[in-house]
């Protein structure tokens, strides 16, 4: 009886683990795409050279403007500044505040800005911009 109960418990545990897994592991991967175009940052003042020139930047001001957050970043190595318009949805989870250290990583498509472990923005260069686009398909007549 004891052995049977153990088997039942194991069976139930298996059901718990296996049941929900079907949706993610059968034909998954077609769910709503991240609208990363909207999450991209836009430089409103200054130059992208500030992002390219230093791996570390510091937040010197944060201002919420509707759905956007205007952030001024100052180079940790000199006085150069760049002002970015970011998506508040993306920044919201990153707890951006004055003094927050922002790391920049340059790659072939632009600059990835991270605060701690959270990506707060991607500032695409020309190549990056050509890779990002998101729109609901418009029906043709």
């Amino acid at each position: 009886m004891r052995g049977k109960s153990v088997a039942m418990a194991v069976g139930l545990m298996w059901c718990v683990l296996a049941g929900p897994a079907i949706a993610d592991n059968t034909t998954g991967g077609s769910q709503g795409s991240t609208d990363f175009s909207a999450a991209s940052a836009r430089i409103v003042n200054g130059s992208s050279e500030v992002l390219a020139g230093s791996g570390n930047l510091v937040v010197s001001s944060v201002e919420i403007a509707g759905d956007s957050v205007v952030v001024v970043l100052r180079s940790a190595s000199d006085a150069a500044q760049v002002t970015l318009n970011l998506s508040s949805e993306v920044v919201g989870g990153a707890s951006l505040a004055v003094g927050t250290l922002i790391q920049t990583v340059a790659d072939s498509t632009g600059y990835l800005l991270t605060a701690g472990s959270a990506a707060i923005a991607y500032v695409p260069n020309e190549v990056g911009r050509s890779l990002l686009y998101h729109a609901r398909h418009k029906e043709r007549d």
Partner: protein
Amino acid sequence: MRRILVGALLLLLLTPFAYAGQTCSTRAPAPESVRKGLALAFKTRNALGKTDARLVLIGRVGADLSAQGLRYSHMGFAWRGTLDGRWQIMHLLNHCGRADSDLFDEGLGNFFLDDPFAYESIVEVPSPGLQEKLLHVLASPEPDLLHTASYSMIAYPYSARYQNSNQWVLELIAAGIANARGMSRTDAQRWLRDSGYVPSRVRISPMQRLGATLFRANVRFDDHIPEELASGRYQIVSVESVIDFVSRLDPATRRFVITLD
């Protein structure tokens, strides 16, 4: 032992709720995911640039399907804009946490930014003749006419009740190859069956089916035939089955895989 049983039962009752509404995340993507996704898009674009293709089929590894003998989870059409030369993807996406879908035009970058299981893409380059037919179809009303918003991940290949993303691609291919306008989904499916299309089969246990029925809006079983419900083996339109079908009907098709390695 009684405590173990009670604990297991409580988990059985409560765990599925932890999954409800969490079919996908709306949180900002992790830095590494973003970096890798864009790197793969860049590499894919460069690989496409070395071809003379104007339209390809493109697939991604959105989930680990190895237990079902499958690698790729989702596919769409990628086409090169005639004016600016940019590659754009047209595909069907299931709205996050919902039971419906829409058609989207996206860049290559967006296609790989959905936190895939593996950073790998598969590209199927049809013959120039088939590319021409498919471009013509994509520019017509057919993408919308052959779209059913009611979504099921495991939609039965020969029912028009639901549709998954790969099924939409397959049915548009049918309209393109058959060169038929105004084709219904039922017509397309009949044509596919008559033309030798072979769906993939996935195994779903009764308990998995129960869990999905109760807690997953985007997994439906009521379009499948009784034999499949009884056997637990369900026919679906997979990326692999679409690629195999196109390769058979269009032997000049070329294929390559792109990884970040």
